[in-house]
């Protein structure tokens, strides 16, 4: 099984989640030899995306058999792994539709036959269902990392074309750019001016400008700017996206993040990857492989080898007793450590399979709705469909999750159905997947007592990837202590000189054309040219 696979590396990475994949790519990029493994037969671990059949299989939570390995001598200890799928609890998949239509009598009109599960399963590959749905701020965080490292050339994105918020018992479009506000019929002239003023202030304020005036809670600050309740709610909930008790500093920083992201790729601050979030991990793994990393999925992992004399992790061992050594470090997702099962914090996640959008539209949309209220944490709702390649035409995926789980899933669905009214009802929900995901990000890092074993975390309940990117960056500098550059830009093909050939290299660079039209896909690799095309809305902002 391991024929041809070297037994010694600089770094061994266990788990193909986001943080591990970024780290593996960063290490390989800097010339380290890397072995990157996963016990699953897919990439992404907790961040993976599945076809419909793949998801159904995942819900069955197949566990790998545990095998005890004996230490090979007195200096060695073995730390066995736990079941990494234990980060998922209470996994339930319910369908509101029949399995098949074969038994029903034939009706005259074929088209009114109700949809059945086997019809969906036949189109299984058209589904790409995220275990961890996330959005990407157009500036900062993961997008900046993708552009800076040139990993962006491996992926494509769609603009999150529709941002919604709750207003007067309905869901409406969020007016956040100058054009939105100009075109809105629901805001009075004076309110338009006041809202634009606050938005422009948030945009242009630098961290140094914050002073004692800003020590009040954000909601009070907004009221001081003479905004009415609806507009305060709009800014807190849908632009800053903070809780009602947030500080002004936090509110302004997050509003600025949102506003700075508008216009970079289109009239919305968020992007969503084509074919789902699982693609992201694969992109970083691809970079790692390009720089010489070795990949092994479905690795039969038994545990970690430890040098008992100095309590140092030295590598991994397979269930067949094969040992692989790591000279510098072993990086491992903490879902493999048995301690994770005692973790109490969970994120409740829901995926609804629907046959209608929560708000009708003439074109394909990627939708983000954030619900919140006083004394409640924000509820994230993302709807994707055929546009980003996540569902067959006519079907949608509705992701629901919270930053810190306090609400009951059924209550949230009730709340949503009240808002959508007749446009979208319970009849449109064909199926429902619910599960709990242990939140390893927010728990204090139980750094293992072993040296040379770096433990990474899984996703948190936030809407973006910032915490994962930060974690990867910090861990990288912990390992290589600032001497090395984190994910330097990979060279473009035309700058590579192959020994023995002439200067000019004929390989063509396949950067795709860029349209900032919302209905087309966006390639972040050629961001330099795109940056000069910023919508003039943001220039005024």
């Amino acid at each position, binding site marked *: 099984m391991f024929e041809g696979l070297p037994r010694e590396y600089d770094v061994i990475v266990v788990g193909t989640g986001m943080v591990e994949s970024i780290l593996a790519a960063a290490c390989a990029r800097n010339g380290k030899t890397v072995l990157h493994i996963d016990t699953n037969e897919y990439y992404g671990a907790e961040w993976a995306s599945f076809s419909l059949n793949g998801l159904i299989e995942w819900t069955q939570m197949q566990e790998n058999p545990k095998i005890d390995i004996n230490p090979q001598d007195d200096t060695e200890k073995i730390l066995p792994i736990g079941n990494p799928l234990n980060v998922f609890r209470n996994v339930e998949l319910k369908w509101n539709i029949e399995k098949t239509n074969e038994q029903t009598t034939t009706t005259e009109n074929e088209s009114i036959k109700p949809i059945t599960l086997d019809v969906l399963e036949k189109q299984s590959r058209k589904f790409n269902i995220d275990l961890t749905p996330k959005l990407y701020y157009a500036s900062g965080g993961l997008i900046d990392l993708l552009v800076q490292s040139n990993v962006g050339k491996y992926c494509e994105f769609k603009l999150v074309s529709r941002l919604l918020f709750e207003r007067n018992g309905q869901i409406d479009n969020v007016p956040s750019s*100058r054009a939105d506000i100009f075109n809105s019929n629901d805001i009075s002239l004076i309110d338009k*001016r006041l809202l*634009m*003023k606050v938005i422009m202030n948030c945009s242009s304020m630098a961290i140094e400008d914050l002073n004692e005036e800003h020590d009040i809670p954000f909601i009070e600050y907004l009221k001081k700017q003479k905004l009415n309740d609806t507009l305060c709610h709009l800014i807190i909930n849908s632009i800053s996206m903070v809780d009602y008790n947030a500080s002004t500093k936090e509110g302004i920083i997050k509003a600025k993040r949102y506003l700075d992201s508008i216009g970079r790729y289109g009239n919305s601050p968020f992007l969503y990857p084509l074919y789902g979030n699982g693609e992201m991990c694969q992109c970083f793994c691809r970079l790692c492989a*390009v720089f*010489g990393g070795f990949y092994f999925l479905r690795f039969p992992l038994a545990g970690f080898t430890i040098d008992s004399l100095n309590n140092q992790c030295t590598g991994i061992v397979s269930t067949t007793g094969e040992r692989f050594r790591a000279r510098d470090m072993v990086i491992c997702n903490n879902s493999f450590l048995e301690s994770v099962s005692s973790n109490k914090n969970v994120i409740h996640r829901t995926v609804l399979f629907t046959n209608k959008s929560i708000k009708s539209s003439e074109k394909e949309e990627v939708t983000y709705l954030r619900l919140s209220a006083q004394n409640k944490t924000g509820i994230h709702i993302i709807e994707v469909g055929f546009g980003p390649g996540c569902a067959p035409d006519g079907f949608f995926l509705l992701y629901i999750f919270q930053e810190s789980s306090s609400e009951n899933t059924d209550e949230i669905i009730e709340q949503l159905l009240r808002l959508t009214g007749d446009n979208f009802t319970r009849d449109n929900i064909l199926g429902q997947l619910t599960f709990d995901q242990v939140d390893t990000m927010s728990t204090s890092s139980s750094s293992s007592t072993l040296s040379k074993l770096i433990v990474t975390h899984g996703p948190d309940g936030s809407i973006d990837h910032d915490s994962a990117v930060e974690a990867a960056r910090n861990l990288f500098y912990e390992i290589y202590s600032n001497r090395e550059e984190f994910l330097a830009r990979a060279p473009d093909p035309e700058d590579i000189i192959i020994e023995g050939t002439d200067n000019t290299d004929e390989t063509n660079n396949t950067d795709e054309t860029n349209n900032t039209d919302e209905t087309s896909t966006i390639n972040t690799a050629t961001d330099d040219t795109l940056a000069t095309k910023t919508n*003039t*809305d943001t220039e005024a902002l």
Partner: protein
Amino acid sequence: MPVHGQVKIRTSAEQKAARERERAEKLQLYLTEYESILNNRQLTDLFALLKQTENTLINHPDCFTLWNIRREVILKLDNDKQKEYLQKELQITQLCLKSNVKSYSCWNQRQWCLKQLKENFDLNLYQNELQLCQKFLEIDERNFHCWAYRYYLLEHLCPSSSSDIETFYDNELTFLRSTIGNNLSNYSAWHYRSKYLDKLLDHNPIRRSNLLLKEWELVLNAVYTDCSDQAAWFYLRWLLFKQLGVESITETEHIKPLEELDEIESENKWCMLALCQLWKEKKINDDKRRNYLERLANHIDTDRAAFYRDQI
């Protein structure tokens, strides 16, 4: 990168040197081509000349002389050949526009072609051109060349029957409204809006008060949303003074909203200037007007101090 064998990557100094080399080569090629064309200008092989100029222009679309030579050549051809080559010319300019969407000469050449083809007016041709404008406007909605060309096309596409004309103008105003909706600062859109509004009002004066009321609401919306955008303020001034006329300006409807805006945005020069002009025409608030003009000249917009002082 051990997997791909020995590879070296160009340093940024080497990259710069490579770029310099490329540019020098390109320049040399251009100079040779240009000289050759000038030499061939008087020869009789017209088609060869066209081919030569075409090759050069695709890479360097802004060379006036070369386009001039092409016009010379095409006019020398006989009628049916001429028509064929004029059509081709449209294709060639399109290619050239790809490298520079704001090339004066390319747009000029297109317009010249249409003028030459005028005797054989072809509706399809004009519709196609309109669609092309649409595409270019999607790329850059503030490309004034494209707007001017579009205006020229519409002049010729304008229906002659009275009932159709009104719909035609209304459609255009709707289009301009949506363009402004996408981007308030689109000066071209506001400018052409003023032209079409003029035409519509001339054609059907009955709708005057209704239309002007709607326009006023639109422009007020614009200046409230973004009080520092010039395009909207210029349109506002045109609407009030050129269209509405001083007699029709009322305090409640026109002056008061601006005064309210001024209260919220106290140092906004556009608002202050507009108010000063209104107060002057209506012969009210003279002290306040002088005060504002002084402040504008001395503090707020000192670059144009003389302009403000002149108005006192």
